């Protein structure tokens, strides 16, 4: 028994052998680098790297270089907690970001709060993360319940767009249920009849049975929510193949905005709306420049995730620049937190200023980007391209409504 205890120490000693480098400013990022979510971890890794390279090439932050420490959590909550603990206590990072999925972000937030280390959320969207009063947790991106903001605005202001009825199909994950609930709450408030309320398990192979059922309700709008790209594409395909002809197909979730929608669905994607937390403002030169540069470096066009990762580093750098760092880790972390509270800037993602306010589902947010509702955009697939159509200020082209197929 004794020998086993000593062996614990020996093994733990191995774990702790990473040298303590005091020089660069360290940012920790738990991300899924293996496991089912690995592709997302990889996207963020690229985006973080690019931003850090740019900042360091320009002389760093107050003369000190930035460094990112990514730890793999395999999309498992317990591992996310473990690596967060490690990043804070072993790697001695000043500030945390990342997380990828909400379950893991919840663990990171909870530990950051306990160990008093600022955590700046870049992508996880569960409302709960910034609705629990964690003063050490900040979020740049919109919460799940904000996703339908642009859609909401669209049906209220575009002439004749108010749905007569709507069918809502969403996955039974945190993401799907949050958005599904938010959308239905808002529609009901406007007196719109919800003719179908269908939840499905993620990674469903065949949506035809659900879609046949939905078709029977003859909805005026078909609203689809998917956390998984597979589901987004199959939902759209099967809905169209079954012959549902609503005035508008509206998708919520990243999957409805990826290039695969067009390549996989071809003409079936035509005129499908994607109402997302962020679809980029292509009219902004900074966004254009970022897209071009990213494509040049990695050979792929960036999306939501890359933009979020890239922007978050700039927000952190900005806070670090303003924070008075003394070398005392605890004091420095608090200084960073205070600097974040005073953030007021614009990134490729858009405007950032953290504040406490009430969300659409009635939650009280803490340190949630106050500009979140303005980031929400409706885009539409046209000829294989996803173009912003609403609100007008971000529109690249006019919108097609109602869907010409519905009129036949």
């Amino acid at each position, binding site marked *: 028994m004794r020998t086993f*205890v000593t062996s614990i120490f020996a*093994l733990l000693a191995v774990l702790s052998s990473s040298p303590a480098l005091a020089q660069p400013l360290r940012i920790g990022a738990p991300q899924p680098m293996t496991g089912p979510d690995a592709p997302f971890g990889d996207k963020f890794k690229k985006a973080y790297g690019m931003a850090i390279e740019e900042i360091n090439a320009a002389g760093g932050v107050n003369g000190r270089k930035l460094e990112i420490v990514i730890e793999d959590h395999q999309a498992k909550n317990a591992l996310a907690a473990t690596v967060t603990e490690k990043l804070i206590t072993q790697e001695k990072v000043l500030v945390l970001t990342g997380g990828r999925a909400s379950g893991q972000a919840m663990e990171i937030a909870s530990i950051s709060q306990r160990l008093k280390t600022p955590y700046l959320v870049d992508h996880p969207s569960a409302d709960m993360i910034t609705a629990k009063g964690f003063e050490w947790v900040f979020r740049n991106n919109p919460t799940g319940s904000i996703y339908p903001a642009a859609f909401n605005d669209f049906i209220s202001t575009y002439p004749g767009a108010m749905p007569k009825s709507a069918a809502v199909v969403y996955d039974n994950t945190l993401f799907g249920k949050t958005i599904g609930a938010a959308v239905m709450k808002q529609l009901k408030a406007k007196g719109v009849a919800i003719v179908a309320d269908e939840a499905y398990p993620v990674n469903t192979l065949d949506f035809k049975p659900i879609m046949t059922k939905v078709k029977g309700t003859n909805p005026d709008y078909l609203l689809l929510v998917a956390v998984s790209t597979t589901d987004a594409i199959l939902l759209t395909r099967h809905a169209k193949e079954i012959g549902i002809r609503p005035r508008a197909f509206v998708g919520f979730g990243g999957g409805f905005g990826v290039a695969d929608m067009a390549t996989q669905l071809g003409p079936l994607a035509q005129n499908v709306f994607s109402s997302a937390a962020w679809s980029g403002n292509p009219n902004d030169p900074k966004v254009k420049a970022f897209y071009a540069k990213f494509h040049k470096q990695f050979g792929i066009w960036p999306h939501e995730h890359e933009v979020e990762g890239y922007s978050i580093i700039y927000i952190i750098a900005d806070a670090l620049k303003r924070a008075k760092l003394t070398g005392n880790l605890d004091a420095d972390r608090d200084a960073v937190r205070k600097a974040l509270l005073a953030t007021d800037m614009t990134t490729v993602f858009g405007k950032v200023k953290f504040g406490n306010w009430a969300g659409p589902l009635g939650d009280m947010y803490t340190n949630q980007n106050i500009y979140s509702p303005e980031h929400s955009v409706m885009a539409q697939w046209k000829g294989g391209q996803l173009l912003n159509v609403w609100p007008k200020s971000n529109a690249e082209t006019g919108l097609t409504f109602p869907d010409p197929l519905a009129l036949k």
Partner: protein
Amino acid sequence: MRSLAPWLAGAVALAALPVFAPNSFFLHVAILILMWTLLGAAWNVLGGFAGQVSFGHAALFGIGAYVTMILYLKAGVSPWWGIPVGGLVAALASLPIGLVCFRLRGPYFSLATLAVAEIVKLVALNWEAVTNGPVGFLITGLPPLRVFGLAVDWESKLPFYVVAALLALAGLASTAWLRTSRLGAYLVAIRENEDAAEAVGIDTVRAKVMTLALSAFLAGMGGGFYAFYFRYVDPDAVLNISLSMEMVFIAMVGGLGTVGGPLIGAIFLTTVGETVRERFQVGHLIFYGLFMMLAIRYMPEGIWGRARKLFSSLQARVLGHGAA
């Protein structure tokens, strides 16, 4: 008396660990090891002693986690009470599960437990009134616990470490008790030959159900502990198949049906997992899988079992008899 010595040494080492731990991450890993020891022991009680291989222990873990969490959030029940109550509810829930699954033997039993676990997960996902569905529950802060006029602050790791150590000891002690108790003897008989066990008057169904309840109690307490330590419970985190598999791996690698096996398995798999993850950013699970295969190929009796064998053959050689 002699058999108490290693236990005492272990207890002393356990008590000393936090003093030497350089930072909270070490304690965190130690807590994880202790939690996995409990869970490995929970599985081992049923799988190792009674020979009933369950692939559904995540369900019992999850039930414990949910019950503890819900009691705390809805009724303000402190972890002190919440964890054992979570274990009790898991044990109660295991009774109908056992009555259904124990009608099957061998791989059919294993597959049935897997199905039960998946059903429990679906229920947790959809029974929103009770479980909050996929959203789950998040605790933001625990009020300090008052023990004998002392306020224990849950913000530090130490109280969790103490609780985890107590739970792991409870798990190991249950196993040790089982080894010497009448029930344990019955289980060995059932594992060796179920018909013969019935013939000598052993109510095999009752013995198996009681063992499952004990196993569920331990697993449920593990779930309760998880809920408080990680503070976030949702179906994906606490009802995942991978949790069930991990428990099997730990008991198996440590040594099936041995008292110390789960501890060794937990230490080994946690540290191997951490070390490999540290060294190989991408693809570390390749090594984990490979390690599993090698362990089963070359040490089917587990580390503890192998060590015991080596020890006894060494002893035999030194004492000059039994050397074949």
